[in-house]
């Protein structure tokens, strides 16, 4: 079970004296900045992936960069692991505490430091909520483009750690494409400025390396975000299909036609049923897949392009198309998509959200494979996903109270991810590897590649103290995982000793 850390596979357990650490940290943190009582630590035992739980040694809640500098210096000296946490909404267990660690919560660094409407940038602390940036920018006719579904709660620091995407990233890019600068603190306590207000900065692009590094390299203490002008107009087209393959074909044809939608989302039958019950979206009874395609821009252009897309959908076999006539209808159509996740709660007591990406041309094929795997493992799978960029979110429905179901769900999830890798995709499009997909990293990457990741990490963190047991597996872990797992017809880590 990945909820537990194994010193042989994840790195050594810390040996410091907890009392001594508390004394040292008390001296550098504000009086209310350190939690040590067991009940207080409970709150931090998991992130959005609640199946995995583990108690931290203690929780630090700094308010200033200077306090983080002092904390990291102490942790480095005493060899204490540090796990950074933003809003705790991550879905891959990236903020799962390592036993005995200092859980570094950045939630109190929550200020928008500067918003410059002329430069179109916002300089923010890592604990600022994603949506708060667009809200602050709205009076100037600007917005911050990356919009993960959790945007009302998730923080910018977490977005940077995961390189978060969202519904609109097909057109506007991921977090890495929408940031200008960041301030980081290394484990040595060095404060560094990466990137800048100019469009490029000298040296290696460490800002890009930091983005998506899941708290393994350094702590992000400030981020400068790029803001975009609000589009003049946005409309959405809903197209219903009698089968998933036809919807997949429509996606490939829309993109091949040179259209870059602001969002292109798909739901399969099970997800539609859940959404229908939740918000009466009005899907026709014969529909087995629905496509939502949003365009933004000049009003007449949007109308003309959506007409073209509707034709592409009908040629691909759409049985019904509906175009939003006004903003209220656009919101109603999206409500079905946005409600799909919460609606799953009515379909099953628990669900497990998978996050693979595949080339768009393989959509229909992989959705068929997922259906077959779902039958094989005896658990239903609903699909709600970002079709435009091939980012799948199969939701495995299960009941944790039933003996063995959670393990079955994990195995089914792993099988789906391995299928994604096999068709040239990846095990994670936007949720991150975290703790959850650490074993699948051994499938996607070779021994040399994992060692290179470890070498890059060591350039920042030679003692392996930042977020151990996450994102990059040790070779020992892959050897053990590989012993059970045959890759491309042979053992991938056969040359390593089994532990």
């Amino acid at each position, binding site marked *: 079970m990945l909820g537990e850390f194994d010193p042989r596979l994840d790195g050594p357990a810390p040996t410091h004296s907890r009392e001594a650490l508390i004394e040292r940290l008390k001296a550098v943190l504000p009086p209310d900045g350190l939690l040590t009582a067991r009940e207080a630590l409970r709150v931090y035992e998991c992130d959005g992936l609640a199946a995995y739980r583990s108690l931290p040694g203690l929780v630090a809640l700094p308010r200033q960069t200077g306090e983080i500098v002092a904390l990291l210096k102490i942790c480095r000296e005493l060899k204490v692991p540090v796990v950074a946490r933003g809003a705790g909404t991550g879905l891959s267990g990236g903020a799962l505490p390592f036993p005995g660690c200092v859980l570094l919560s950045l939630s109190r660094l929550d200020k928008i430091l500067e918003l410059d409407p002329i430069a179109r940038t916002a300089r923010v602390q890592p604990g600022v909520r994603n949506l708060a940036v667009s809200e602050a920018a709205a009076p100037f006719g600007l917005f911050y483009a990356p919009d993960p579904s959790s945007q009302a709660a998730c923080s910018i620091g977490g977005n940077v750690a995961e390189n978060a995407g969202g519904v609109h990233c097909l057109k506007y890019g991921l977090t890495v494409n929408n940031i200008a600068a960041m301030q980081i603190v290394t484990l040595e306590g060095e404060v560094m400025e990466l990137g800048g*207000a100019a*469009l490029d*900065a000298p040296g290696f*692009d460490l800002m*890009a390396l930091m983005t998506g590094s899941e708290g393994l390299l350094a702590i992000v203490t400030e981020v400068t975000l790029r803001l975009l002008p609000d589009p003049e107009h946005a409309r959405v087209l809903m197209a219903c299909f009698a089968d998933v393959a036809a919807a997949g074909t429509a996606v490939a044809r829309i993109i091949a036609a040179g259209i870059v939608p602001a969002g292109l989302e798909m739901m399969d039958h099970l997800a539609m049923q859940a959404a229908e019950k939740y918000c009466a979206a009005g899907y026709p009874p014969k529909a087995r897949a629905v496509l939502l395609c949003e365009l933004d821009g000049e009003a007449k252009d949007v109308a003309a392009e959506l007409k073209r897309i509707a034709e592409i959908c009908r040629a691909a076999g759409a049985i019904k198309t509906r175009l939003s006539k006004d903003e209220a209808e656009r919101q109603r159509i999206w409500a079905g998509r946005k409600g799909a996740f919460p609606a799953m709660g009515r379909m099953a007591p628990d669900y497990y959200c998978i996050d693979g990406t595949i080339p768009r041309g393989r959509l229909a094929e992989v959705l068929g494979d997922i259906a077959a795997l779902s039958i094989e493992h005896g658990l239903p799978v609903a699909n709600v996903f970002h079709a435009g960029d091939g980012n799948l979110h199969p939701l495995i429905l299960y009941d944790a109270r039933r003996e063995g179901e959670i393990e079955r769900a994990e195995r089914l999830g792993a099988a789906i991810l391995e299928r994604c890798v096999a068709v*040239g995709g*990846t095990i994670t499009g936007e949720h991150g590897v975290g703790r959850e997909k650490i074993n699948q990293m051994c499938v*996607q990457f070779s021994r040399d590649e994992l060692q290179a990741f470890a070498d890059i990490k060591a350039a920042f963190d030679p003692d392996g103290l930042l977020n151990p047991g996450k994102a990059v597996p040790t070779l020992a872990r892959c050897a053990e995982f590989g012993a059970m797992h045959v890759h491309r017809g042979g053992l991938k880590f056969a040359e390593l000793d089994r532990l």
Partner: protein
Amino acid sequence: MPNSTGSETGALLAEVLEAARRRQGLVIRGAGSKSFYGRRTSGRVLEMRGHTGVIAYEPGEMVITARSGTSLAETEALLAAHGQRLAFEPPDFGQGGTIGGMVATGLSGPARPFAGAVRDSVLGARIMDGHGRILRFGGQVFKNVAGFDGFRLMAGAMGSLGILLDLSLRVSPIPPVERAVALEGPWSAARARLDTLLGLPLALSGAMHDGERLHLRLSGSERAVATAATRIGGEEAPLSLWQDLRHHRLPLFAAARLWRLSIPRTAEVEGLTGPRLIDWAGGQIWIDAAEPAEAVRAAARAAGGAATLFHGAVDGENAFEPLPIALMALHRRLKLALDPAWVFNRGRLYEGL
């Protein structure tokens, strides 16, 4: 068809291992069309020009994967035949400039503020590092957060972290309509105008000031371009200017010592004299400065940016802005992580790197 084989990669590997064993430098060379860029480096030349060929290109996926020695011109011709292009408009200095050199130098063209930089379009890279390891970073899909993004790190690293073998690049549709307009007036007036225009959702794809006129390029649908043109006014201008700007064919680029200043768009560079051209809506200044290097660098720093001696550096002279000590130390540790014997493009980016 790709004409590079496993044995060719094998030959590269033998060269790298031998150089590492003897602690000798290797100079990675594509077409050599950008060999003027960066500090001078010496060592045995590793020719990449034979490592050519498109490995995969499916227009519907909006991704092309090709060997690093593939020429940029051929790549762009192939994309254009399918109505696609590289959004960041890399300069091509002729002589068969390669996509490997394009990524290694990380140079983007006039569309940079509107369409992103080279690194925004790199989706994956297969490299050979100084250990002789063949590493695949990233992949062919846009959304991919597995592993560190080593591929983006390669953009602008000047070949100092490894040999680029294959690259996967995100491509974009060619906009249906492009138009160029020009407005008379000094930079101060142009800047104020840009402050307003950039805050609106207009189909802008270029903003350059040549000292007398503000040149704007519009790209998009017919209607979006027409709307923008009406909003902007000015007079119609030839689009060819933008190609000349992109490929550095304007007279200023022939200067013996040409500086490139990358500064915040809203900042002003003070105290420098000499012919100049302001691109990237104010964010990039090309200048044939009369002042000595230290004064140029100081002026760029004062504006909150950095200066690069784009060409004309003498032996041993820094081309790029020196880094703060701690940041430079981190650069060295990263270099050693991937190139422990200090083999690749020694000192091309910085002395000691």
